[in-house]
C-alpha cells in the first residue's frame, strides 16, 4: 500500500510542480511523473493479483463521516493495472502531442489536471469510504472536464465540456442517493461494513440497484446515458480521449461491480436489466459508430459498444448467480472483466492512432483522408492491430474476452431448463450482430483512412509522428497480442478477483475454472497454428514469386480511362447499405442533390447522424423542464406593489393554514 501512496504522492507533487515550471521541464514532469507513479503503483497491484492478501490502510480524515480508508484487493488491483499502464503511455504520448501548443497554452495546467485525473481514478478504485469515493469521483469529473476543454477557444469544445460535466454531475446525483440510502440502511458509510451486512429488503435492494445502474452507467456510458461520450471524446486532446475512453469510463464498471458486492444475492431481473443495457448499448453503439465520419466520434461510439459487451458479460454472470450455475458465473464475469482490460488496451491504442492521424494529417474527417498507410506506416499498422482486436477477431485479445462471453451464452443455452437459455439466445444473437457490424465499421475506418489514394491535400501532406508518439502505440499493440498469447495466465490472474466477487475460496474458483483454462490453451494453440500457417504461406508465396515478373501498374479500372482519388468509395458510401438498413434507428439526415440532365453538373450527398438519445430523449426533457420552470418567472414582474402583495398573501395563508 505504501507503494500506492508513493505513486499518489508522486502524481500530485509532479502535477503541482508542473504548474510552476517552464516548457521543457513541464514535459519532463508530465511524462516522468506518471511513469514513475505507474511503476510504483503496479508493484502492489501485481502482487495482489498473484495471490498476495489484500492490503488496506485507514487514516483519520477530519471530515464529517469521512475516513481515508483505502484497500487494494483483487478487484481494485484488476482496475488499477490498466489505469496505470495506459496513463503512463498516454502521458508519454501527450508530451509530443501537446508540444505544438507550447507557449500558446498553459501546458502546466493540462499536466496538472492530467495527473489529478490519474490520481483521482486511483483513489476511486481504492476508496473504501463513501465520502472519500464521492470526492475522488467528483475530482475525477472536474479534472477531466478541464482536460476536455483544453482547446477552449472552440465553440464545439465548450459545448462538449458543458454536456460532459452536466451528464456526469447528474449521474453523481443518483450516486449520492445510492450511497446515502445505503448508509441509512446500514448505519455506516464504510464499504467493508456494507459488504459485510448481508440481506437488504428486496425493495430497497432493487431501488439501490437501479440507482447504481443509472449513476455508474452514466459514467460508463450505457445507452441511453451515454450522451456525453460522443461529445467529450472527440473534443478532448487525443491522449486524454484515450485515457477517458480506455480507463476512466471503466471506473463506472468498477463502481457497478463494487456496488453489486453490497447488495446481496441478485434476483434474476437484475441480470436481465444489464443484458438489456448491454444489448442496446452494444448494437446501437456500433450502429451509430458506423454512421459517423469523424474518426474520434466513431471511436467514442465504439466505447459505448464495448461497454455494452462488458455489460452483457456481467449480466450473464448475475443470471448465473441467481440460477446458481457456477460455470455461467465464471464465464460471464471473467469475460466481462477481461474485456475491461482488453478494451483499455485496444481503445487506448485506437485513440492514440486517431490522435496521430489528427496530428499528422490535421483532420479527423474520415472522408478527407486515405492512403495514410504509406505515409504513416507505424500508426497505420498499429491501428490495424487495434482494429482487428476490437472486432473480436483472432489472433488478438478482443477475441479471447468475447469468446468467454460467447461461451457463457452457449453454456446457458445447453444448460437444463430454459431460464438460462433465453439470455444465452439473446447474447448470442446480439453479440454476433455486434461482431459483424464492428467488422464492417473498422474495415471502413481502417480502409478509408489508411488505404487507397489520399482524398485531400491534408492526407497528401500527412507525416508520421515521432517516436514519442509511436512507442506508446507499439507497446499497446504488443499488449493486445500478449494478452491473446498468454490468455490462460491472464485469466488465472482473475481467480482472486472472481473468488472475491463470488465470495468463494480460491481453490473452488480455480478448480471450476479448469475447463475454461483448457479452452483457452486450445485456443492459443490454434491461433499460434494460424499465425504459423500465415507465415509459412507468406514465405511460400515469396518463394514462388522470386525470379518471376512482379510488375507494378495502376489499379484495374474496369476499362474506365481516368480513375481519380475522388472516385473511391468514401466512408459514407461504404457504410450506406447498412445505415440504410437501420435507418429507422439511426435517423440519418441526408442532404442530397441528385445529378440532373443529360450532362449533369455537380451532385452531392451529405449525411450526418446526430445522437438518438440526445435528440429525442434529453433535449425534449430539458425543454419540458425549462418550460415548466419558466412559468415561475412572472414572480419577478418588476412591480413593487405585487411584491408586497406576495408577502401579505404568504403571511395570511400561513396564518389561516398553520394556526388551525
Amino acid at each position: 500500500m505504501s507503494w500506492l501512496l508513493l505513486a499518489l504522492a508522486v502524481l500530485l507533487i509532479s502535477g503541482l510542480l508542473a504548474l510552476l515550471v517552464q516548457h521543457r521541464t513541464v514535459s519532463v514532469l508530465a511524462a516522468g511523473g506518471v511513469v514513475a507513479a505507474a511503476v510504483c503503483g503496479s508493484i502492489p497491484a501485481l502482487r495482489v493479483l498473484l495471490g498476495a492478501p489484500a492490503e488496506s490502510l485507514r487514516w483519520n480524515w477530519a471530515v464529517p463521516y469521512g475516513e481515508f480508508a483505502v484497500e487494494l484487493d483483487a478487484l481494485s488491483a484488476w482496475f488499477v493495472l490498466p489505469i496505470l499502464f495506459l496513463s503512463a503511455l498516454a502521458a508519454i504520448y501527450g508530451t509530443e502531442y501537446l508540444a505544438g501548443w507550447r507557449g500558446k497554452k498553459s501546458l502546466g495546467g493540462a499536466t496538472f489536471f492530467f495527473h489529478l485525473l490519474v490520481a483521482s481514478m486511483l483513489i476511486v478504485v481504492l476508496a473504501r469510504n463513501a465520502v472519500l469515493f464521492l470526492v475522488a469521483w467528483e475530482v475525477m469529473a472536474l479534472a477531466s472536464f478541464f482536460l476536455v476543454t483544453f482547446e477552449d477557444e472552440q465553440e464545439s469544445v465548450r459545448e462538449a465540456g458543458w454536456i460532459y460535466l452536466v451528464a456526469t454531475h447528474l449521474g453523481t446525483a443518483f450516486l449520492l442517493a445510492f450511497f446515502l440510502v445505503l448508509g441509512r440502511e446500514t448505519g455506516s458509510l464504510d464499504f467493508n461494513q456494507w459488504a459485510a451486512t448481508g440481506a437488504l429488503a428486496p425493495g430497497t435492494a432493487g431501488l439501490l440497484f437501479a440507482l447504481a445502474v443509472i449513476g455508474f452507467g452514466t459514467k460508463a456510458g450505457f445507452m441511453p446515458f451515454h450522451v456525453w461520450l460522443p461529445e467529450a471524446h472527440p473534443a478532448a486532446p487525443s491522449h486524454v480521449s484515450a485515457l477517458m475512453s480506455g480507463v476512466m469510463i471503466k471506473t463506472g464498471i468498477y463502481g457497478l461491480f463494487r456496488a453489486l458486492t453490497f447488495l446481496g444475492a441478485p434476483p434474476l431481473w437484475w441480470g436481465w436489466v444489464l443484458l438489456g443495457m448491454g444489448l442496446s448499448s452494444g448494437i446501437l453503439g456500433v450502429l451509430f459508430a458506423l454512421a459517423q465520419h469523424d474518426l474520434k466520434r466513431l471511436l467514442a461510439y465504439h466505447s459505448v459498444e464495448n461497454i455494452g459487451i462488458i455489460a452483457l458479460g456481467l449480466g450473464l454472470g448475475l443470471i448465473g448467480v441467481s440460477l446458481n450455475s457456477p460455470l455461467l458465473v465464471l464465464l460471464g464475469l471473467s469475460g466481462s472483466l477481461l474485456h475491461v482490460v482488453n478494451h483499455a488496451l485496444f481503445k487506448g491504442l485506437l485513440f492514440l492512432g486517431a490522435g496521430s492521424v489528427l496530428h499528422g494529417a490535421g483532420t479527423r474527417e474520415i472522408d478527407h483522408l486515405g492512403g495514410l498507410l504509406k505515409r504513416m506506416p507505424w500508426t497505420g499498422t498499429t491501428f490495424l492491430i487495434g482494429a482487428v482486436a476490437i472486432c473480436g477477431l483472432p489472433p488478438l485479445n478482443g477475441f479471447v474476452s468475447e469468446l468467454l462471453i460467447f461461451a457463457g451464452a452457449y453454456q446457458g443455452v445447453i444448460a437444463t431448463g430454459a431460464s438460462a437459455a433465453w439470455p444465452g439466445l439473446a447474447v448470442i444473437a446480439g453479440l454476433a450482430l455486434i461482431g459483424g457490424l464492428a467488422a464492417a465499421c473498422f474495415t471502413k475506418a481502417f480502409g478509408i483512412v489508411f488505404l487507397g489514394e489520399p482524398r485531400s491535400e491534408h492526407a497528401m501532406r500527412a507525416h508520421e509522428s515521432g517516436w514519442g508518439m509511436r512507442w506508446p502505440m507499439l507497446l499497446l499493440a504488443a499488449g493486445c497480442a500478449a494478452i491473446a498469447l498468454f490468455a490462460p495466465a491472464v485469466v488465472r490472474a482473475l481467480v482472486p478477483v472472481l473468488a472475491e466477487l463470488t465470495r468463494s475460496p480460491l481453490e473452488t474458483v480455480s478448480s471450476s475454472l479448469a475447463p475454461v483454462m483448457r479452452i483457452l490453451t486450445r485456443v492459443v494453440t490454434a491461433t499460434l497454428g494460424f499465425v504459423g500457417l500465415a507465415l509459412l504461406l507468406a514465405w511460400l508465396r515469396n518463394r514462388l514469386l522470386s525470379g518471376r515478373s512482379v510488375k507494378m501498374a495502376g489499379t484495374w479500372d474496369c476499362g474506365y480511362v481516368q480513375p481519380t482519388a475522388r472516385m473511391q468509395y468514401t466512408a459514407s458510401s461504404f457504410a450506406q447499405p447498412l445505415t440504410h438498413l437501420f435507418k429507422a434507428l439511426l435517423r440519418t439526415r441526408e442532404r442530397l442533390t441528385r445529378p440532373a440532365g443529360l450532362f449533369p453538373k455537380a451532385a452531392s450527398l451529405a449525411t450526418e447522424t446526430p445522437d438518438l438519445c440526445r435528440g429525442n430523449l434529453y433535449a425534449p426533457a430539458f425543454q419540458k423542464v425549462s418550460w415548466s420552470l419558466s412559468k415561475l418567472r412572472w414572480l419577478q414582474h418588476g412591480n413593487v406593489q405585487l411584491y408586497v402583495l406576495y408577502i401579505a398573501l404568504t403571511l395570511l395563508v400561513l396564518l389561516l393554514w398553520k394556526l388551525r
Partner: protein
Amino acid sequence: MNADLILILVVLTNLKLLASSRLGACIRTAAAQGMLLGLLPLLVHPHTAPARVVGLALGSAALKGVVFPWLLFRALREAEVTREVEPYVGYVTSILAGILALAASFWLGGRLALSTLAASPLLAPTALFSILAGLFLIVGRKRAVNQVLGFLVLENGIYTFGVGVIAGIPFLVELGVLLDAFVAVFVMGIAVYHINREFDHIDADRLDRLKG
C-alpha cells in the same frame, strides 16, 4: 373618553384613508390617526402613568402627528401632485374591502386569543385592521406617497398592538421602534424626493425597469 372610543376612531380613519383620493386629505387623516394613537398609552394604563409612558405618548404624537405629515407634504410639493392617479382598486371597492378586512381582523383577533390580555377587546382587531389597511394602501395605490402612508398606517397598527397588548416592553425597545419608524419614513421621504427628481413622477407602478 376611553380607549374603545379612540380605537373606533382609528378604525374610521383607516376607512377614510381607503376612501379618499386626495393625497393631502390622506396625509391629514394619517396625522390625525397618529395623534389619536399618541393618546392611547395614557388611556390603556390610566392609573399607572409613569414618566416614560407619558414621554412615549408625547413623542409618538409629535412624530406621527407633526413631523411625518410635514415630511410628506414637502414631498408632495416637490412632486406637484395632489391626487392619486387611477388606483389598482377603485375607492368604493376599497371601502368594501376595508369592511371585509375589518371582519377578518375581528375573526383573527379572536383566533389569536389575545383579547384576554388586551386592555380592550377592540384592541387586537383594530391593530390587525390597521395592518391590513396599511398593506392595502401599499398594494392598491400607485403614488409612492401613498405607499409611505400605507407603511405608516401599518406601523401604527403594530404600535397599537404593542401599546395595548404587551404590558411592559422595555423603554429602550420602544424608543428604538419609534426611532426606526421615524428613520424609515424619513428615508422613504428622501427616496421619494430623489425619485421625483430623477423620473419627474412618483408613480411606484412605473418603476418596473428591473425584472426577470
